[in-house]
């Protein structure tokens, strides 16, 4: 397969060079090029017109085939409260663009075919029509303004307003090259002050040891969230720009060294429920089918077999941050309030961590 692709690339490269070399032809005098058959006649125009038509049809067939063939790769339903609104906005925009794209491309290619060159045919002289131009300028302006205002701006203001929740859970997500940590704010639900200048020994997040708010903070390596409770995230970075990306919750926020960025959402589906949706069970089944076959090959060549795949929510880094950027992730677990509290009790507070370090 690789060899075939390389041959294909080489062939395309040669064709490209040959096409570029045709520039030389442009330097020839008009008489010489007409003698070479370089001036188009009716048969040429007819053929090229049909090519235009075949091209647009082939593009649409390919596009629809891709939509059907790759639907396993679409993101599954959102697992957060604002996610549904976000998705409907995306779908609305896509549908509007698709309709316009279908119309304009179909017309462009159809006209190229319909009005292809014929001997003796005269083009209509038609230089201006203010009313027509006004109509096809005004419609996109109105539609775009509508999409941006009602769809975009209002949703944006609502989603980005972190102060709208009553009694949210306050959590800090902390990024470093190349991993994530979470800081829970403890019983007082207030994060202690922090700065990278306090980083020392077991105080890996630079929490201010003199700040009383920070005493009950807990640092964890997995993000556990109780279902249906709003969460306000404070993002902090230790070294370079990162971006906290939680695709299943339709959330992403830049993580910037030297400042705190915020985002909030309410998770609505627990990890267990999400795993058992029809889409996800089917997807996991397909992936494990591929893994089983790959494992057979690996075992035949004496390698270790692959573990079966299991779905989990993940928080990923979405801004180039260095060599291991591709592998910078943290597991997210959404669970019932009881399970969450049980898990939280197993975590160590900052006060205890400091005391242990002194002993």
């Amino acid at each position, binding site marked *: 397969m690789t060899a075939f692709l390389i041959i294909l690339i080489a062939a395309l490269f040669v064709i490209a060079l040959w096409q570029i070399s045709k520039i030389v032809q442009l330097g020839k005098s008009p008489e010489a090029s007409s003698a070479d058959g370089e001036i188009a006649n009716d048969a040429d125009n007819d053929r090229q017109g049909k090519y235009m038509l075949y091209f647009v049809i082939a593009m649409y067939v390919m596009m629809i085939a891709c939509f059907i063939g790759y639907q396993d790769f679409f993101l599954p339903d959102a697992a957060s409260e604002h996610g549904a609104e976000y998705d409907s906005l995306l779908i609305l925009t896509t549908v509007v663009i698709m309709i316009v794209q279908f119309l304009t491309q179909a017309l462009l290619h159809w006209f190229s075919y319909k009005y292809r060159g014929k001997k003796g045919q005269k083009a209509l002289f038609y230089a201006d029509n203010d009313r027509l131009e006004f109509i096809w300028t005004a419609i996109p302006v109105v539609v775009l303004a509508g999409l941006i205002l009602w769809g975009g701006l209002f949703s944006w203001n609502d989603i980005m307003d972190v102060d709208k929740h009553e009694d949210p859970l306050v959590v800090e997500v902390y990024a470093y090259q190349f991993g994530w940590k979470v800081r829970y704010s403890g019983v007082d639900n207030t994060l202690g002050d922090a700065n990278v200048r306090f980083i020392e020994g077991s105080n890996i997040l630079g929490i201010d040891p003199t700040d009383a708010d920070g005493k009950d903070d807990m640092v964890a390596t997995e993000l556990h969230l109780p279902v249906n409770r709003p969460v306000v995230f404070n993002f902090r970075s230790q070294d370079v720009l990162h971006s906290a990306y939680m695709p299943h919750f339709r959330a992403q926020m830049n993580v910037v*060294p030297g400042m705190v960025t915020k985002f909030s959402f309410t998770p609505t589906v627990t990890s267990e429920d999400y795993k058992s949706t029809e889409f996800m069970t089917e997807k996991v089944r397909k992936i494990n089918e591929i893994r089983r076959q790959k494992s057979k090959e690996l075992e035949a060549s004496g390698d270790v077999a692959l573990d079966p795949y299991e779905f989990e929510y993940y928080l990923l880094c979405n801004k180039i941050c260095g060599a291991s950027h591709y592998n910078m992730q943290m597991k997210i677990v959404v669970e019932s309030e009881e399970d969450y509290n049980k898990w939280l009790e197993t975590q160590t507070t900052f006060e205890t961590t400091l005391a242990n370090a002194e002993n």
Partner: protein
Amino acid sequence: MGQVIAAATEHGHDDGHHHHKETFVTKYIFSTDHKMIAKQYLITGLIMGAIGILMSVLMRMQIANPEQPNVIFEALLGKWAPGGVMDPNIYLALVTIHGTIMVFFVLTAGLSGTFSNFLIPLQIGARDMASGFLNMVSYWLFFLSSAIMISSLFVELGPAAAGWTIYPPLSAVAKAMPGSGMGMTLWLVSMAIFIASSLLGSLNYVVTVINMRTKGMSMTRLPLTIWAFFVTAIIGVVSFPVLFAAALLLIMDRSFGTSFFLSDIYIKGEVLAHQGGSPVLFEHLFWFLGHPEVYIVLLPALGITSEIIATNSRKPIFGYRAMVALF
């Protein structure tokens, strides 16, 4: 189209022969003739394009078979693909240099440099550009910056790898990744020279279109292609200096200990002294160019297609004034 260009080219050559004798150097290398400079831009742009395409092929080969050994990687990348497996740092470097080459060297300089230089004087009825000398300097600065960008591929720790947007602190702190050492310095120097080249070129296009139109060629009679080049040049003149400023400030942060973009950074076990800057400032400065850049890339193509389709369907442009207003 081809015939028109051919005729005009011959005419230009005749002019040259009547007035003064040209040597090989003045005709083909340090030429002040807009047609020759356009060809120089075209060839340099195509070579840069070929390098950029090769990089994207390498990237896709890595994505198709992630972390698998490949003889081609071993042959082309040498120490950056130990045992034929591509190093993650060099993957990021390919992303970065591919993006930079394609956006700036091919789509900005390659496109505007070639077509604006070739077509503006021919289509507005001028003998040459307003300043042939500046035009020549513009090309040779472009060549120099291309050469520096390519040479950065061969430095010890590899070329710049912080993405084509080179956001600090990743690009500013040498400890953050290998590519942020010498490679990033060369990237910044190359881009500074590139911006100088682009500004000289754009100023020349603007001045030529305003001052050198032939008798009767009013602004409302300009071909749409020229309108597109004209507006592109104006956008370039307005937005590129901001990137230049960002690059200069980044050079200061990297080499002279200032803190424009850096604050509260703990890296490789120590806290940096930088305090009070913000990486977001760089993002704003960068995208002050980055957003208009999409128009710099798009408009020449729009102008060219408008004119080609109109010419070949033997019709006047429909709604000329509306199109000009859109530009």
